[in-house]
């Protein structure tokens, strides 16, 4: 962030308090000024990407920074100038709440729904304030501090979704009278959570004219496993296995994003070797995630051979990963201050072998799919999305780049020496499903380039910081010296003490910007850990993408968006 930005912000918003936390500008505003501040930030300061909306409950916080119990935080990004702004405001009465921001950014729609669902903060003027993650018979708001973590509520019968679908259809001004004259009417269809094409547990209710989708409602939350509430009861390092299961196809990227955010705020400088390790493994997992997406997308179009073919490379990569991490899918390989294990002996040869196999396999697959007439007819000019719409809906990652927006955190806000690697960012030209599909092949190639460069540049040396407050001491110290034992004991039982504060940090994961917003009270467990999931906002854009297209197009679009349930619902 430029030095002048903070003064510019203070001049533009004199009634707000401007501070800086790591490289984010933080504005504390009054609820009356919220809408004007947000609009001005979007128009004058170019923050047209609303990353996240979340709430904070200060009920059990030691010496809370404000007198109101709740706070709502809007995290905005100016992607051209690498500026992240957080706008915070206190909420004195959650029943009245705040005015909605969904008229400024479309991504605020789902963000505010989640805030209402988890914290009970009302957003007046919101078009569709319903529960999003918890079920329809749920009473209470689970992320509030007075809601016990194990208070279970049984759902007896699923929501029928008829009312929201009909109201969305009505808002589209479809002339139903004209249709009934012809002897037909709008047909409603439920593409339910138990469906092979929904890649997990996502539910749609569509209103159809023949096969064309007139209106579409997306219902998520079928895999809501309470990550954020669980993070409040575990120490910082104990949350790492929970982060594995967010985007389970590229589990180490979640680990890296999580510890990177903590290390950035706590000013823990990890070793060079650890940085390069994280780059190599992060890019390796990006390749694996893209392989799964391409394989599954091929299945949805009908090309099953592609799936068997690409899965071969993935299985081979699992051999490498299970040698390194002990598990095939879940890595849990990062720790605050470094990594769990260094690389094993001979890893360069194995990695090069796997990269060569992936290059060949993905290259063959691309050759089969790229010029395939059937694939082109199914995917080209289908579900087109303009760059402005994509930004407004909060898309990031390959889905945003396929719409033509050249935003990648690795280039625009580099970390871990990414600015010293030579790689390109593939950008799509049409914003259709074909672009979303093909961009992943190109990203695989670029990731392979990065890994090869990083493997040449990786230095030797320790992998973990030598700080006993941050990383577990060596076992020899633990068993022979009293300080070692005491440090080990404190770190395991209390966790790494992160300084008090609130911060946000983003990471370029396989699906987009994976951000973590933390509130720390100085102890070893996070007071609040909010994940900014890239899939969540992508799926919020899904109705706008598919309305006007046919069901088959919607299915193909869904598979090429790479929606992972664990990340979507947390």
């Amino acid at each position: 962030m430029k030095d002048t930005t903070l003064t510019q912000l203070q001049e533009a918003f004199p009634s707000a308090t401007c501070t800086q936390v790591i490289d984010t500008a933080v504005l504390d505003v009054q609820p009356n000024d919220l809408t004007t501040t947000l609009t001005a930030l979007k128009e004058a300061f170019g923050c047209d990407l609303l990353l996240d909306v979340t709430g904070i409950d200060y009920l059990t916080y030691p010496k809370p920074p404000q007198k109101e119990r709740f706070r709502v935080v809007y995290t905005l990004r100016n992607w051209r100038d690498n500026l992240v702004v957080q706008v915070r405001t206190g909420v004195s009465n959650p029943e009245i709440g705040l005015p909605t921001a969904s008229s400024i950014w479309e991504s605020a729609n789902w963000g505010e729904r989640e805030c209402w669902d988890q914290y009970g903060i009302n957003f007046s003027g919101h078009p569709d304030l319903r529960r999003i993650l918890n079920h329809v018979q749920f009473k209470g708001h689970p992320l509030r501090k007075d809601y016990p973590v194990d208070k279970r509520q049984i759902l007896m019968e699923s929501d029928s979704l008829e009312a929201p679908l009909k109201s969305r259809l009505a808002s589209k001004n479809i002339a139903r009278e004209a249709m009934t004259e012809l002897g037909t009417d709008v047909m409603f269809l439920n593409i339910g959570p138990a469906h092979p094409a929904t890649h997990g547990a996502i539910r749609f209710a569509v209103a159809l004219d023949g096969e064309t989708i007139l209106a579409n409602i997306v219902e998520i939350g079928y895999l809501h496993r309470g990550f954020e509430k669980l993070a409040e009861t575990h120490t910082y390092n104990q949350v790492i296995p929970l982060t594995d299961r967010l985007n389970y196809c590229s589990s180490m990227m979640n680990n890296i994003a999580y510890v990177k955010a903590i290390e950035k705020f706590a000013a823990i400088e990890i070793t060079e070797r650890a940085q390069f390790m994280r780059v190599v493994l992060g890019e390796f997992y990006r390749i694996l995630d893209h392989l799964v997406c391409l394989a599954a997308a091929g299945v949805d179009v009908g090309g099953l051979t592609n799936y068997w073919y690409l899965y071969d490379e993935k299985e081979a990569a699992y051999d490498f990963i299970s040698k390194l991490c002990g598990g095939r899918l879940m890595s849990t390989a990062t720790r605050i201050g470094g990594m769990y294990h260094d690389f094993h002996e001979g890893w360069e040869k194995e990695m090069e072998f796997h990269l060569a196999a992936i290059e060949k396999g993905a290259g063959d697959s691309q050759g089969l799919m790229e010029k395939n007439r059937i694939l082109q007819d199914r995917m080209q000019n289908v579900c087109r999305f303009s760059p402005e719409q994509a930004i407004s809906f909060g898309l990031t990652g390959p889905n945003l780049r396929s719409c033509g927006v050249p935003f990648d955190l690795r280039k625009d806000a580099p970390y871990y020496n990414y600015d010293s690697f030579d790689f390109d960012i593939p950008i799509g030209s049409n914003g259709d499903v074909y672009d979303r599909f093909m961009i992943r092949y190109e990203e695989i190639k670029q990731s392979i380039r990065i890994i090869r460069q990083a493997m040449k540049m990786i230095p030797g040396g320790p992998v973990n910081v030598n700080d006993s407050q941050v990383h577990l001491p060596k076992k020899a110290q633990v068993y022979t010296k009293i300080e070692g034992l005491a440090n080990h004991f404190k770190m395991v039982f209390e966790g790494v003490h992160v300084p008090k504060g609130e911060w946000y940090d983003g990471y370029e994961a396989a699906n987009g910007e994976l951000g973590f917003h933390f509130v720390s009270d100085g102890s070893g467990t996070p007071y609040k850990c909010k994940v900014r999931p890239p899939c969540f906002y992508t799926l919020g854009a899904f109705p706008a993408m598919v309305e006007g297209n046919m069901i088959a197009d919607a299915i193909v679009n869904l598979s090429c968006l790479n929606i992972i349930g664990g990340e979507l619902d947390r």
Partner: protein
Amino acid sequence: MALGIEASLGESVLTSKLDEIINWGRKYSLWPYVFGTACCAIEFMSTAAAQFDISRFGAEVVRYSPRQADMLMVCGTITYKQAPILHRIYHQLCEPKWVVSVGACATSGGIYDNYCTVQGIDQIIPVDVYVSGCPPRPEGILNALMDLQKQIESNSILIDPQARHKDFRGILDQ
């Protein structure tokens, strides 16, 4: 309830031979309904892929309709929001049917002991085989399939195959 006319033949060499043939047919053609919600579904995808090959056990034909499948494999976490769906799918499966609970989350809630996760699908539907692991290795899933095949071997046409679960009452079975 589910006994055909051959049951009136009583225990004889005819029914025991018939048992063998019927069990042989059933255990080597278990068509799975993969109720995949989370990470374990990815491991099931690996099991179905070429290296671990569930097809050699006869279970390659993954049917996504409960009317066409006979083995329900619950791969992944089941939340309270998903529970009525699972309950309904189980009851819509045609007899004879078996349930395999793949992974720690389906078996007992896994690492998610909180307000939204069902602590094991056996609170909702009766389960025949449990597979532990987070996620289990594909060999674990194949081992479960082989255990299920051993269970099926001991079935008899004189006994209703669903009778083993007739006293089951789940939380959604009021």
